[in-house]
């Protein structure tokens, strides 16, 4: 009751709370929905996203699992095929590799292999990214890898609003959907527009309009890009910031329209540069928008090293606002 009252009186919340409310809403709205994963129940979730849910919904619907990713993701796929709407949490995307066979060979292919007889309406949530000194085995950004796989939808909420509402759209989708929640964003706070009660999971979104250069980004690189656009604006460079939101399938139309208009582009991606989603985007732009470009495409990605533990090293390894600013300055002549 206390929480309901709090919800009614304020629309300001953290990204973490938005994720929690999204799960709670799904559990209330649809009795087929359940949450399972490592430490989601008694412990309240490794990033405290599911805190309190076990007490409210009970162990049937909030299920702690063994440390066995292939097993509980496989169980989730089976549950989805059998008619439930499971939400599976993988503590960090680094651990998802243990379940990669289930995700790729089962979740993504069964609808195809069964000739459409089986759908896999499964949602997998994973924490991703670096910035909290969790070192190389807990800090990587692997969403670009998953965006390689046909049959999956890959989402990357970069705002409180998307954290709050993408899950609902993901559960409504008959395909397996993976949501990458950035570990640094969990503490981000913002206001929700009271008029918004749902979001799409198909479109990129222009978060800031500008005429001189397009910064294409997602996840925790979104606030860094918006900060860079702010610095650039003071110098007379109007940067447009496009939040990809959906990494698979990519919303070509929105990206192409923006870059064709500004004619310059920087892709900011916390993944490693080689074989990254930024590589895919740069390739698509040069394939389809080559003659619109007025400057080389630039990419700002993480250093190609395991993410370091030491704070200053970790900071140096990740895309940062000054790099975005410098790249934009090199491409755009201030007016």
């Amino acid at each position, binding site marked *: 009751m206390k929480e309901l009252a709090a919800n009614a009186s304020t629309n300001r919340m953290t990204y973490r709370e938005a994720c929690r409310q999204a799960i709670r809403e799904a559990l209330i709205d649809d009795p087929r929905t359940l949450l399972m994963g490592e430490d989601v129940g008694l412990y309240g979730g490794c990033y405290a996203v599911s805190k309190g849910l076990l007490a409210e919904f009970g162990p049937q619907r909030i299920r702690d699992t063994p440390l066995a990713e292939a097993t509980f993701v496989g169980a989730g796929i089976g549950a989805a095929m059998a008619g439930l709407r499971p939400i599976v949490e993988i503590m960090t995307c680094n651990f998802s590799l243990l379940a990669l066979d289930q995700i790729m060979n089962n979740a993504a292919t069964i609808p195809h292999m069964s000739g459409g007889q089986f759908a896999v309406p499964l949602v997998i949530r994973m924490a991703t990214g670096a910035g909290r000194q969790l070192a190389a085995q807990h800090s990587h950004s692997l969403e670009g890898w998953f965006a390689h796989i046909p049959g999956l939808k890959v989402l990357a909420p970069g705002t409180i609003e998307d954290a709050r509402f993408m899950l609902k759209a993901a559960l409504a989708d008959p395909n397996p959907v993976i949501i990458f929640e950035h570990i640094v964003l969990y503490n981000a706070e913002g206001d929700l527009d009271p008029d918004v009660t749902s979001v799409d999971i198909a479109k990129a979104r222009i978060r800031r309009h500008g005429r001189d250069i397009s910064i294409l980004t997602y996840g925790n690189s979104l606030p860094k890009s918006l900060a860079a656009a702010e610095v650039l604006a003071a110098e007379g460079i109007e940067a447009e910031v496009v939040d990809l939101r959906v990494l698979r399938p990519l919303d070509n139309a929105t990206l192409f329209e923006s870059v064709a208009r500004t004619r310059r582009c920087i892709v900011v991606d916390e993944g490693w540069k080689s074989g990254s989603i930024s590589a895919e985007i740069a390739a698509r732009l040069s394939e389809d928008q080559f*003659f619109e470009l007025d*400057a080389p495409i630039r990419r700002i990605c993480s250093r190609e090293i395991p993410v370091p533990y030491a704070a200053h090293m970790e900071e140096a390894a990740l895309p940062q606002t000054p790099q975005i600013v410098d790249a934009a300055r090199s491409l755009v002549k201030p007016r």
Partner: protein
Amino acid sequence: MPSLGADMESGRLVQWLVKPGSVVKKGDVVAVVETHKGAFEIEIFEEGVVSELCAKEGEELPVGAPLARLTRPGEQSVPKAPKAAPEAIPVSVPLAVEVGRAPGTQAAPLASFVQPSSRPRASPAARRRAGELGIDLNTLKGTGFDGSVTLADVELAAAGGAPPKDPSSAAAPATRRRGFDPNEMRLAIAAAMSRSKREIPHYYLASTIDMSRPLAWLESFNRQRKPEERLLPAALLLKATALALREYPQLNGFWEDGRFRPADGVHIGWAISLRGGGLIAPAIHEVDKHSLQSLMGALRDLVGRARSGGIRGSEMMDPTFTVTSVGDRGAESVLGVIYPPQVAIMGFGRVIERPWIVDGQVTARSLIIASLAADHRASDGHLGGLFLSAVDRFLQEPEGL
């Protein structure tokens, strides 16, 4: 080397008025530059101390070439290029080395490792546009990333105003004489007017304005004043045009990069024919804010300096609109050619005495045919008509000017 007009490609530094160590502030005249339109005083737009003169007197330089270096207040003087380049570290340096690098050093930018190729560096968009316009990329100087030719560079070249890569490729004849050269000016006018007629879809409007009232007012105004304080009709025409432009800012500005950019102030270029032939149209700044008397003073000063030399660079760069008035020995009407990238030009013919109908009676009146040539990309005829009516309205209340 500043651009003293869209048609200027290069200029000769005639004289330095500062030397290394000179303290300068915005607006100071620092040099005299000569173009095919004559000699101009060049003002500086920054504040600081002159640290180096890059150009020698007598040297011919393309637009955009550095003339001098300036140290801003509070800045250390710029050191000469370092002898060695210890910071030229290979690009694929491991992170550990980069993090440990001494503060103040920087990895050389990636682009500097790219070998220059004989093919001109141009963006895909620039290359496509140059192909459409039949422009040779080799002749252009790039302003984009790493010196590449951008779409804007191509469009500027198409408009006739691009800085050429190298002065020897400019159209100027090798035997160019010092001083004002009517042949050079002819070429400059030819380039600007060809560009205008090639690119700008002009539309033309004309209205006959009854000048009896403003001229009568002018006569009584002048009667009480000494000859040097008297106003000419030109001052009324200019001021009325400026006030009308304030009402219709869509005619006051520039067509650039495929769209209209309104100007910040009303700086009217006043077309002045020169005694040696040719003409220039330097700006009178903020015409709408002048009183008639200060405007008349500015006009006299401008015409005097245009004919004797001494037009400032900023006066050549700043016009936002042009007025051409044929004066009392000219034709009855004039339909102007727009000076790009401006979007309109106002033309005033000679004042003529004609039978006119006022209150149902045929009577002799002093008339002037006012015409507007405007860029149809930036505005439509309806707006042009309203603008001409506004000019008429302001002229009919000369005491309000």
